[in-house]
């Protein structure tokens, strides 16, 4: 187990190196000239050339890459071209709002998703199932920006319960996390339903029923845990996506998170910030995958790590 863990952690390094090359190439290949954007609309040609030189953008790509990676190893993510603040600070102030929003969205998505999934699976093809799955289909198909604006109209403008956006108190989390969690809850519900239905067809479930166990015990104690493995995998992936920050949700709710930072940086061609954001997202996914893999063992002790 420990050996496996160490092996996985060490394995992160080559992945990150490959990812960093890809990110670097991708960022520098999108058309657009950061020097012109930094210098601004009324800058003269000479000013732009000066900026290009100062930003090191006239050096060759490989040398730019090595200085980028070299700086990372010294713990320096560079300086934002747009705000001239250290990229680390830019990311740090934006990370926590996105993190907590992801946690809240995930918390209630898991709660509601599991509940709907279980109810649907155990009430197969009756009205409870239809209602649950209708909710799930809606959750997936409603465009989140529309849902967000509707929630704002209803709960902020009409009822005045929650703020329209920004991050001031716990109240600020309610609407964005509902909007963001809706899609995730729907996916979890559907996964739980199909996975649990399969398990409920297993022989040991029939045996349990035969020996007179209560249905509730069969579902919650004996089946659900086994049914959860694909759900956990999928939930982990979803959490990874959430941690990247939702551009749509963060725009609708004026959320000071990573999604908006990324989109702002892309349109400004703020290379250092884009690179750092994407590296961070890659790292998040790798870590989540690791945690998910370890969770398998907790849920099913028969799974062995080698």
């Amino acid at each position, binding site marked *: 187990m420990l050996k496996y863990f160490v092996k996985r952690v060490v394995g992160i390094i080559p992945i990150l190196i490959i990812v960093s090359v890809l990110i670097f190439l991708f960022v520098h290949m999108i058309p657009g000239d950061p020097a012109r954007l930094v210098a601004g609309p009324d800058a003269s040609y000479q000013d732009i050339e000066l900026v290009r030189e100062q930003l090191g953008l006239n050096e060759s790509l490989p040398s730019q890459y090595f200085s980028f990676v070299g700086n990372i190893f010294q713990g320096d993510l560079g300086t934002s071209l747009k705000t001239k603040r250290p990229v680390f600070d830019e990311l740090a102030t934006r990370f926590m709002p996105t993190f907590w929003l992801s946690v809240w969205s995930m918390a209630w998505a898991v709660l509601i998703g599991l509940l709907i999934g279980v109810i649907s699976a155990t009430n197969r093809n009756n009205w409870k199932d239809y209602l649950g799955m209708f909710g799930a289909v809606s959750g997936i198909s409603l465009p989140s920006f529309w849902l967000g*604006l*509707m929630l704002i109209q209803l709960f902020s403008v009409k009822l005045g319960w929650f703020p329209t956006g920004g991050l001031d108190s716990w109240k600020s989390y309610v609407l964005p996390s509902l909007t963001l969690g809706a899609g995730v809850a729907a996916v979890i519900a559907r996964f739980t339903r199909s996975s649990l239905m399969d398990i409920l067809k297993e022989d040991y479930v029939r045996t349990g029923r035969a020996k007179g166990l209560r249905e509730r015990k069969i579902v919650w104690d004996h089946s659900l845990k086994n049914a959860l493995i694909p759900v956990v995998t999928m939930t982990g992936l979803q959490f990874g996506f959430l941690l990247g920050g939702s551009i749509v949700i963060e725009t609708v709710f004026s959320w000071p998170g990573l999604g908006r930072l990324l989109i702002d940086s892309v349109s400004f061609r703020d290379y250092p910030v884009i690179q750092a954001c994407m590296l961070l997202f890659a790292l998040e996914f790798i870590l989540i995958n690791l945690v998910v893999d370890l969770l398998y063992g907790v849920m099913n002790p028969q799974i062995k790590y080698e």
Partner: protein
Amino acid sequence: MLKKSYQLLLLVVLAFSLVLAGCSSNSTSSNGGKDSDSDGKLKEAEEQPLAKKEGNSITVGVADNFISMDPHDTNDTLSYSAQKSMLEGLVGFDKDMNVIPVLAEDYEASDNAKEFTFKLREGVTFHDGTPFNAEAVKVNVDRLADPDNNLKRHSLFSLVDKTEVVDEYTVKVSLKEPFGAMINNFAHPAAMMISPKALEEYGKDVARNPVGTGPYKFSEWEPGDHLSVEKNEDYWQDGLPKLDGITFKPVPENGSRVAMLQTGEADYIYPVPTEQANEIQGKDGIVIESDPSIIVRYMSMNTNKEPFNDLKVRQAINYAINKEAFVKVVMQGFGSELDSVIAPNTQFYSKQDPYKYDIEKAKQLLKEAGYENGFEATIWGSNNSSTMKGMEFLQQQLSQVGIKLDVEPMESGTMSDKIWSVENPEDAEIELYYGGWSPSTGDADWGIRPLLGGESFPPQSYNTAYYKNDKADKLINDALQTADPDVREKAYADVQKILWEDAPWAFLAVTNTMGGKKNYLEGVYLLPDGSLSVQEAEIKQ
């Protein structure tokens, strides 16, 4: 059985969507029946009781994040809007973009437009207690004039040769060569004064720690979330400031920004989306304010390329476009027809004879030019929805005279590559370009030279028409050799006439500024350059 379940699902979906349609009818009805009366004018705000307001601070909802609080190193109007609550310049702009004294009581320019002397206001101190005097002005102007500081606004002050302290409250700025529009550069927010002590203490971090002389002091800035300023008790102007503080919040989504104003979370928002302006006007104590800006909309035509090298073709295109319909359709009526290369609020504007919408005349001119059956061309522009709407409108209009436009929207980075990485005018692929321009110094020079001056071809500047007229260039240049307003006015009147008749652009429209406020708020307004003025803000109860 499956079939049955689908039927049920369909039914529920239908029921649900009906409910939702009911909810949303409120916010979308303007696309429906009401269009008939949207002749573009803003609905008269009915008498409504003053909305309720607690406390003596306000929140302003804006569309984007602030980038910097260092005016010398800022090139977005939005950052200036926040800066202007804290910092002030020697001179500034009033509501109509006239230059007015602020920290300078008086100023004069030498006849050759090379020396500018400012008499400073006495008894003003920066927020950190540093006295405001000639020495402080020198530090600021020197900072702007030094290219090694790599400031975004260096270009406005690159002509400065030296700045001298004449006495404690008199300062003289000398230029390397005459520049008649210099006083407008000083009125530009780029020339706002920062405390010399703060400059020394924070270095380039002054961008996050602005210290000025304005009615409000910097309080805090959470990037992406909010920026707040608080009352400066020792402000030099009597009776100001009237509020305890102001919080600026970036709210990028139009619908959310409007909702903030509706709920009262914001007391002022801008821009108000033109589509929703009439919808929210007069409800919840909301008042919409829409005034002419100095931002012009045009379509440039590459005068180096066939068929646009033919004056008749260019004029035909101007006749073929219904400008009134353009304002109505593309700008929801919140704008006006452009009747020169610069907007009426720009200094030295002179009105020209409009190209009246006349399809027959356009066809006739095309025939004379040998394009009786029209031709095909490509129009470039950015990929936001309002620009695309504008380009599609032009496509429709020009199709009436047989000109087939291919609309090519581009993401900003791509566009800057395609237009501004072209070194030789002959290599330029550009044909038509749908653009907008705000001459941020408010002077005719900055509204004309970068766009149509002979030395402004890309990649140097913004002359996407590749237009060069020696006579116009000479006039533009002459107008900069003097600070005498009468001489300059005459020169620019001639330039505008030449440009208008030569038609390197299809002249389209002047946009309006769009602000929305609660009716208890007074003294907050948008300037024609699109920046916000909050210095005189007060709450009426």
